[in-house]
């Protein structure tokens, strides 16, 4: 069980709650994943920094599903490589289907990173993945400034005062991801 308080304090789902881990742990999981996917939400638009982080992750060969209206951020930055709008509900629904072909038609993913998505909506989608995307297992993690109990792994809560620490974490994360063939 996690030791952190969920960002929404009553968001205690049950016996299985995500671990709080360092960026490097997540980075290493991403590096070792067969088919990782980065799912970004509209909160990445609150600061150019976050779009850049997403793009940096994308540049390491990781496809991006842009949910909410986050796609604006990529369009505005003119990054169009391997990024695609998807509704988050729709995307999660696809993820739970082992036969889904993925964004590239090559199959489903095994490691999913949530980034910049409205807390409670993200939490519910993580819950779906945790409970139903089990065979084969999809690991879903969060790299947001919230503790996400429904994620397998998550950072802890950051207050606005800790914004710089959080940004540093994201930089560490990017650094720890091994680039891959796209």
């Amino acid at each position, binding site marked *: 069980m996690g030791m952190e*308080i*969920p*960002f*929404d*304090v009553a968001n205690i*789902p*049950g*016996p*299985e709650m995500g671990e709080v881990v360092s960026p490097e742990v997540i980075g290493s999981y991403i590096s070792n994943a067969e088919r990782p996917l980065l799912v970004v*939400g*509209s909160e990445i638009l609150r600061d150019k920094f976050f779009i850049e982080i997403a793009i940096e992750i994308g540049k390491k060969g990781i496809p991006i599903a842009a*949910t*909410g*209206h986050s*796609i*604006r951020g990529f*369009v*505005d930055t003119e990054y169009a490589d391997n990024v*695609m*709008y998807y*509704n*988050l*509900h*729709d995307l*999660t*629904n*696809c993820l*739970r*289907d082992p036969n*889904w*072909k993925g964004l590239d038609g090559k199959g489903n993913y095994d490691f999913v990173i949530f980034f910049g*998505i*409205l*807390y*409670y*909506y993200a939490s*519910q*989608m993580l*819950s*779906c993945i*945790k*409970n*139903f995307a*089990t065979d084969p297992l999809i690991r879903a993690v969060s790299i947001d400034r919230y503790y996400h109990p429904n994620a397998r792994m998550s950072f802890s*809560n950051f*207050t*606005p*005062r800790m914004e710089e620490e959080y940004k540093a974490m994201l930089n560490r994360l990017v650094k720890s991801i091994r680039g891959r063939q796209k």
Partner: protein
Amino acid sequence: MDKIKKGDLFSISGLENVRISIGGIVEEEKEWEPMGPHPMPRIATLRDWDFKLLNRYKPFYAPVCDMCCLCTYGKCDLTGNKKGACGIKMDAQQGRIVLLACLVGCSAHCGHGRHLLHDMIKKFGRDVPIDFGPEVDIEAPLTRLICGIKPRTIADFEQVFDYIEEQIVQLADALHTGQEGSYMDFESKSLHMGMLDSLNKEAADIIQIACYGMPSSLPGGGPDVPLVDVGIGTIDTDKPVIIVIGHNVPPAADIGDYLTENELEDKVELGGICCTSIDTTRVYKKAKIASALGRQLRVIRAGIADVIVIDEQCIRADVLELCQRVRSPMIATNDKAMHGLVDRTDDDPDKIVDDLVSGRVPGVIILEPDQVGEVAVRTALQMDKKRRLLKFILSDDEFKHYVNDCILCGGCTLACPNGLRIGEANQSAAAGNIKPLADLFDLCVGCGRCEQVCKKHIPIVDVMTKAAYPQLKEEKGRMRIGRGPIWDSEIREVGAPLVLGTIPGIIAPIGCGNYPNGTKDAWLIVKEFAERNYIVTLTGCMAIDCALWKDEEGKTLYEAHHGRFDAGGVLNIGSCVSNAHIHDAAIKVASIFAGRPLRGNYEEIADYILSRVGACGVAWGAMSQKAASIASGFNRLGVPAVVGPHSAKYRRAFLGRADLKEDWKLIDASDGSEVYVEPGPQHLLVACETVEEALPMIAKLCFRPSDTDRGRSGKLTHYIDLNLKYLNTYPPDWHLFVRTASDLPLATRNALLKKLEDEHGWEIDWKMKKIREGPIRGYDPSFNPTNLERLIREKK
């Protein structure tokens, strides 16, 4: 027929010892329409239809909790789709919880409707006719459709409620530990519950329209209903103020009557919160709407009410405590919400008023609506004097003190459903900038969770209200009063454009105010679609909230747009129960425009609507159990809905898979051939993260396989345009909806054809400006789409 009525007793010679009561007078049924295949459907009756929907729009589950605590075998851990001690798996358990939510929601409407019917029969008699004037012939489309009944008087709805109540209990039975084991069957049951709920709402609204003469197609009704004031700022606190809260209008109506009879209309303010307020404006001209649910806590805490009258539903559970805090006496008028008070029904009004005014009791219960008016008004008149000097808005000093006290611990943020960063706003305010705090006011849903955890005991809600007070005082909007039924004559006008797609769709923003980002979203949604010539039909809190905002010319949307059921209209249909008229409009399109038989014929009509009527519900702030059953009711009838991100906590969505061809197989009823179509509508129930995402999604869910090319090109225009406007890009799936070149908007046709060629590899015949290869199917104007084999006219 005058002499014998249901409920009558008469005797027959030879049977003097026996009294015979008339149960129902059944007029010859042939008179209006032969009975269809499914009158008064039971749980299993429409299950095939449900399974058709559910196989295309597979139930998607996102548990809010991985455990089940419904029986003492538990708690059970169901994480990872494990089974509980009773053998239920997580997926079925989620279906069960959805059914439970729909049960509570449907029961709320049914409980309300039945209660209302009792009161109305008592007050007006059984024979109040159902007659909505010259423009409404099909008075009760859902009742005809589901029950096979054509109600003539309000008493005819007794059998409707009998039927609903029996079915609700049958469905509640299925919730018991050790019953249903399949999530598909739980969902079929939820859809059944949703359908019953739509019927509830129709019955309840028709009864109150009939009894109170609320607007219909009589003069002054329909598109011509008047505007009323909306917003806290419109309540004149220099007068005694009565605030009514809830959903059941008779007590408020009685207050209005009392004010009128005693010529107090201009001396006392009657304002309301939630649906009761909407309905009060339908019965009492001078009524005002203080706010929707999201402001309830703050309106009460602002202390403006000299008496608060609650009825049922959407009342804060701590209302009594809140009233006491600002010394507003409270009158509870409904047995569903009695708050531990003493029942004073039939007691002497003098005594009751005296007890309330003296503060001997914090509130009373009066269960007879017709006893409420006098007590409420007299209490308000006296309390106004007593309360005049009380102040409930923080003083500047208090405000300063509190914001300075904040230690930025973040506890409130963790407690806040919207994660609002209150501490930082306090800090700004302490440093002299109150704007961040004032800005939170509209983002806040007024729940009060933050205050309880603040270790510094900062009354956060009051602090926020203080910061926003200047803008709050200016919260003065205008709204059309609820117009009730769409006219048959209107349907005749728009039936063809709707089905052909040239009116791009009916957008129905309904329900609660649990918005992710404040009330302004509601306004934006309405504005965007009304300006694009969709028909926008509102009910409930969204109808109220969208009235709070104005354009540059100071006009609200209700003022800037007409109220006809026609392109570009912005219609307030009424309270939550009134949204049945939106179903009714879709049904009437099938019936009046397309001539489909109505009576007991739910499946066929739903099939028609799903394939041809481009309607989309929008419940951007859906919060309650009623919203769950309402959405299920729309869905079973073939109407999709877009919901806000909080709605992911309803646990279930109905999502189609555009990538699975097999899911989009329809039948051409003309010849029985199978046709693979574009995913329209792609989802039945889907959440969007932000309003920017929702706007194109709503447009997308208006595509229907039956669209003509002209209709389709219009819908495509809006779909692409809203994407470009809010997402800065083309939607990745716009090409799925292109069947032929003429589906493409003329203005951009070439560019789009080019895109199809370049980006999607379609083959374009550039000379003919035609598409040679690419689309899922070609455009066939004679295509007669259906999901029902039995509707095939002639097998090829």
